[in-house]
């Protein structure tokens, strides 16, 4: 029974132009679910861990999960899995919209792109038909304009994924955009696409639903239970729709954990100006939703007369407090620029924040800045440097576009970079919220909040309230959140469903759609397996135990101001507890752990 998988993968070699159709290994799919899990397993088995991420030898996998496109809540997700040029480790960037569902409806579980095209190319998919077309005329185009142009050419029913100028130039923080304002944002996946001279993928599909569900009645019943849970929960039924993720600005500031001026402070006096409440009052046009999503957390806003996707909490913080800026309109504009150039709207502003601290400390001089000094809160600097990072020309442009870790290393101040594994950390100070620091330090893709969102129990009280300052129980919580997240990602659901849904709901949906008969424990073990195969990819890629770390600032500099003043991260205490919970020694799984998880192929590696 192929339930919810079309058992078809397209392998496209851009160097030769060859397009092969391969059969999905169903047993492997069940063992890794799909999406993030299966994509990583394929890359690991094909030896991608040791290649240069921007060489033709790297592979770029666009992959759906079994639930992608299913008639179940929040199933518009697909993932881009590759070796990251930013971190040199595994990348899996997840995006919503409708593109992923259309890829699935066209009958493809995944597209594997290899090689490098001799000239700029885009892929056009219409159900079974896949063709490579000339993309020369779209070079230099902004992402939204290219989306419009390709829809004009291929029809309004087409869904478009593309890279903007940043990806073309292989900027290490380049994102892949789809459906205009949705982004597979992190870890520089857009640079890998650019390195292959692949500008876009257009998808059209005849299907309007999955027609291969294993047990349609069981899926209907599981979906009804999931919807009941989502609608009974005030966060997923109305909270996110009303104020989006932006509501967090005021919450996190009020717990004294809103990193400010590159984490030199953790309470921003002007947070109200850049808050979700201010966004709703001044710029919100309406809530927006990805495909089949009842939560509708998206913000459709008016930016200087242009109706477009608005900033999430992360860019509000990163372009706001973290750069000492309280001009909300400029944040909206910079967020739009990130979407247009195809940039990671977390890493880019965090790199600008690091550069502002380098400027504050005299490492970057005014004369280096080509007329736009990197002063705290300078709105001109935020706009101009975002453009420069998106289309770099000068030496400093290129340095900035390589991310904060390389930038700060260049100036001999590596600890100014607030990053883990060379990827910038997101908007929660791990000194004030202890559990999130464990997930930052041990995230396989580097600094990240969606690899185990400990903010949910530590701040939001979901599913229960934990003391954010406590350390004794956080390691096991962190591991459990990481494992469940790996399952949700791999299935093709949006992670936000987990504000209300638990492991039982996901297990029921998965079993109904795919015809498996997993227990909740088995599903969580799959999540554990996925986390471990990612870790083994990183080990093969050269990761060292010391890469599971937090910047020294979080361990040695107590929070300077606000309600969490005086706190530091207790990672030296919690990290060994975490490794014990995982069955790891010195950051890597023991052979016993690998065997227990059915990863025998990794034993001894």
């Amino acid at each position, binding site marked *: 029974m192929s339930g919810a998988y079309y058992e078809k993968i397209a392998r496209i070699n851009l160097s030769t132009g060859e397009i092969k159709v391969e059969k999905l290994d169903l047993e492997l799919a069940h063992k890794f679910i799909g999406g993030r899990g299966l994509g990583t397993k394929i890359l690991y088995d094909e030896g991608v861990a040791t290649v240069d991420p921007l060489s033709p030898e790297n592979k770029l996998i666009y992959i759906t999960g079994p639930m992608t496109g299913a008639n179940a809540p929040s199933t518009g997700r697909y993932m881009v899995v590759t070796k990251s040029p930013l971190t040199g480790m595994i990348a899996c960037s997840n995006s919503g919209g409708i593109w992923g569902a259309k890829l699935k409806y066209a009958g493809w579980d995944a597209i594997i792109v290899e090689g490098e095209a001799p000239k700029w190319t885009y892929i056009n998919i219409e159900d079974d038909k896949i063709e490579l077309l000339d993309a020369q005329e779209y070079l230099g185009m902004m992402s939204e304009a290219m989306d419009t142009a390709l829809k004009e050419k291929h029809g309004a029913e087409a869904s478009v994924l593309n890279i903007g100028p940043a990806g073309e130039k292989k900027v290490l923080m380049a994102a892949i955009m789809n459906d205009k304002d949705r982004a597979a944002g992190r870890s520089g996946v857009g640079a890998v696409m650019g390195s292959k001279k692949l500008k876009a993928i257009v998808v059209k599909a005849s299907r309007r639903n999955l027609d291969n569900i294993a047990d349609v009645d069981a899926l209907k019943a599981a979906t009804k239970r999931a919807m009941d849970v989502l609608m009974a*929960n*005030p*966060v*997923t039924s109305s*909270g*996110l729709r*009303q*104020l*989006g*993720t*932006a*509501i*967090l600005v*005021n*919450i996190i500031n*009020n*717990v*004294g954990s809103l990193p400010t001026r590159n984490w030199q402070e953790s309470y921003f006096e002007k947070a*109200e100006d850049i808050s*979700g*409440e201010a966004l709703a009052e001044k710029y919100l046009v309406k809530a927006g939703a990805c495909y089949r999503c009842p939560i509708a*957390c998206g913000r459709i806003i008016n930016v200087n007369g242009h109706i477009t996707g608005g900033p*999430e*909490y992360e860019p509000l913080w990163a372009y706001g407090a973290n750069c000492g800026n309280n001009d909300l309109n400029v944040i909206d504009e910079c967020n739009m620029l990130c979407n247009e150039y195809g940039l990671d709207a977390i890493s880019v502003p965090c790199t600008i924040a690091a550069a502002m601290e380098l400027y504050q400390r005299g490492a970057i001089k005014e004369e280096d800045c080509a007329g736009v000094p990197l002063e705290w809160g300078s709105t001109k600097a935020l706009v101009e440097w975002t453009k420069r990072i998106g289309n770099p020309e000068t030496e400093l442009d290129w340095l900035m576009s390589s991310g904060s870790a390389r930038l700060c290393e260049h100036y001999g101040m590596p600890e100014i970079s607030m990053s883990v594994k060379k990827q910038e950390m997101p908007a929660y100070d791990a000194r004030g919220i202890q559990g999130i620091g464990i997930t930052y330090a041990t995230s396989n893709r580097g600094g990240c*909040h*969606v690899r185990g*969102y400990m*903010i*949910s129990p530590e*701040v*939001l*009280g*979901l599913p229960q*309230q934990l*003391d*954010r*300052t406590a350390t004794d129980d956080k390691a096991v919580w962190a591991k459990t959140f990481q494992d469940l997240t790996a399952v949700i990602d791999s299935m093709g659901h949006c*992670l*936000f469903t987990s*504000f209300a849904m638990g492991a039982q709901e996901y297990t029921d949906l998965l079993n109904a759609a795919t015809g498996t008969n997993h227990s909740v424990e088995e599903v969580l073990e799959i999540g554990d397996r996925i986390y471990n195969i990612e870790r083994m990819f990183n080990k093969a890629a050269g990761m060292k135990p010391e890469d599971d770390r937090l910047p020294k600032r979080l361990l040695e500099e107590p929070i300077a101001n*606000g*309600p*969490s003043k005086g706190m530091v991260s207790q990672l030296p205490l919690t990290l060994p507890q975490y490794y014990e919970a995982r069955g790891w020694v010195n950051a890597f799984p023991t052979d016993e752990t690998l065997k227990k998880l059915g990863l025998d192929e990794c034993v001894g590696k």
Partner: protein
Amino acid sequence: MIEVRLFATLRQGREKSIMLDSKEFPTAKDVLDHLDILPGEVSILLVNGFHKTPEAQLEDGDVVALFPPVGGG
């Protein structure tokens, strides 16, 4: 005095921030009653940045922050 900060939908029909006399409001519950907010409407209750229940005792100079059910990431 106690500073009470209201957020998101709790601002509807109320001020963003109000000052109350600590002598008249010994607990957070007293503040909620005064503002006509049911405990079930509040999902995050912070006193000086730390999560508390409505029974929490208040002192002069405290900052109380009240949020309805919200999520994000």
